């Protein structure tokens, strides 16, 4: 994809001013880092980081039947969501693979659906193809609305003075509508870093004022602009799947270990039979966490061995500052190789490097 065809977020100019290094991601020019991935990671774990996630797809769903309609397309429960609740969900294909993993936000009189940037066009088509006579009205704000996330142990205290509601009343995976620096937003206590924090859905035109305001008012307390590089390390440490890696059209939520989000008691939904068969057979390759013994990082696509037998491949990998600087990874492994404690080897440039299957997540924030 050439630079001409890449879209820009409402915060593009701010990224340039901050020295952000822009790379193509999900059809947008996105900052992969500013000062450096490790410095940004440290800010989020110990203070707070500010992310531009405006590449994510934002769709608004309206109509009386939204919840019932969407139940048939997703694996998690929707109708049971309380007002202003947020819930992780997955749209599956008929074979049980994942079209996308998403979050539904139940707002007053409408629903916000946030999808992955790289899947936004696919998901928009899928939703429209299923509207039929459901009466559901779909509106895309992809590329129009911005999404700014502030994440880290100090993030709520930094955000509070600029918001017209009491943030302590907004519980984890709930949201509210409020103004931030006087701008209308949907404020959600969700994130993808393993830390406390909020995600702010806002009109693109209003995003620079919020972004610049937070950096102006809180940089002295350690708020750092953070790129997608730090975000990937943070989510991997926190055991969160990334679509295209741990979850794909071929890797189902059952294989990805996301059965907590799978509600088999729901009536028919796309992929239910295939997922039921996977659960029943229990022979499927599955995603497991690995810790490398040595200093060579495991990277996506590297082969994993048990003795002479190839048992799978790495799906994500990184040095993990919050795991003692060890190299951690996820791998899609055959069932017998995926048990916690199993000693395996990862092939890196022709040489074998020891790894152990571990329980995930490897990082949990201190309560």
């Amino acid at each position, binding site marked *: 994809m050439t630079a001409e065809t890449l879209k820009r977020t409402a915060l593009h100019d701010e990224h340039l001013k901050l020295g952000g290094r822009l790379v193509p991601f999900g059809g947008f020019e996105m900052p*992969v*880092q500013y000062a*450096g*991935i*490790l410095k940004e990671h440290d800010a989020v774990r110990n203070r707070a980081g500010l992310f531009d996630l405006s590449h994510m797809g934002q769709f608004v769903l309206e109509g009386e039947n939204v919840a019932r309609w969407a139940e048939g397309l997703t694996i998690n429960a929707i109708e049971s969501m309380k007002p202003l609740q947020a819930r992780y969900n997955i749209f599956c294909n008929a074979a049980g693979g994942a079209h996308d993993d998403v979050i539904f936000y139940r707002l007053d009189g409408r629903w916000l659906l946030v999808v992955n940037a790289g899947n936004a066009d696919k998901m928009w088509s899928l939703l429209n193809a299923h509207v039929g006579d459901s009466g559901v009205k779909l509106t895309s704000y992809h590329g129009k609305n911005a999404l700014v996330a502030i994440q880290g142990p100090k993030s709520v205290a930094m955000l509070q003075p600029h918001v017209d509601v009491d943030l302590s009343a907004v519980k984890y995976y709930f949201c509210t509508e409020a103004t931030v620096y006087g701008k209308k937003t949907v404020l959600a206590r969700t994130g993808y870093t393993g830390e406390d924090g909020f995600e702010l859905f806002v009109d693109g035109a209003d995003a620079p004022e919020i972004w610049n305001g937070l950096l102006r008012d809180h940089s002295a307390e350690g708020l750092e602009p953070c790129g997608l*590089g730090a975000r*990937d*390390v943070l989510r991997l440490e926190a055991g969160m799947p990334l679509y295209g890696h741990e979850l794909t059209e071929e890797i189902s939520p059952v294989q990805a270990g996301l059965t907590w989000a799978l509600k088999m008691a729901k009536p028919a939904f796309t992929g239910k039979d295939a997922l039921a068969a996977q659960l029943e057979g229990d022979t499927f390759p599955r995603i497991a966490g690995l810790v490398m013994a040595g*200093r*060579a*990082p495991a*990277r996506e696509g590297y082969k994993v061995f048990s003795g002479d037998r190839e048992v799978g491949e790495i799906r994500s990998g*990184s*040095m993990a500052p919050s795991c003692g600087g060890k190299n951690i990874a996820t791998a899609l492994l055959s069932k017998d190789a995926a048990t916690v404690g199993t000693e395996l080897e990862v092939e890196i*440039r022709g040489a074998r490097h020891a790894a152990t299957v571990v329980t995930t997540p490897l990082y949990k924030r201190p309560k």
Partner: protein
Amino acid sequence: MSLPQDLHFSKDHEWVKLDDDGVATVGITDYAQHSLGDIVYVELPKVGAVVAQHGNVGVIESVKAVSDLFTPVAGVIAEVNGALDADSSVLNREPYTDGWLFKVKDVSSDQLDNLLDAAAYEKLTAE
């Protein structure tokens, strides 16, 4: 960081300092470490390995990416910087001093003719 004027440079962003005894010390430039970002792992050639000028002799890995490492001079690997095993971030902090990568012996000085001097390298990285 100002560019040391007594070094020679490759277009692959390595620097080399050739001593009178035919031993060359090799590292990556400040420009290179900045482009790579936080360096977390370095795989260096084995001592005794015979290497060709501009040949691939290892890898440098940042948090996000694996990059090939080339040698700006041909010769025999005489020594590698073992301190990088414990802390490769010194490559980011001190690329021209403590962050040296390896030493090559039996290096003929005419190889420097295939490399850039400081002024030419400065021009290359300013483009």
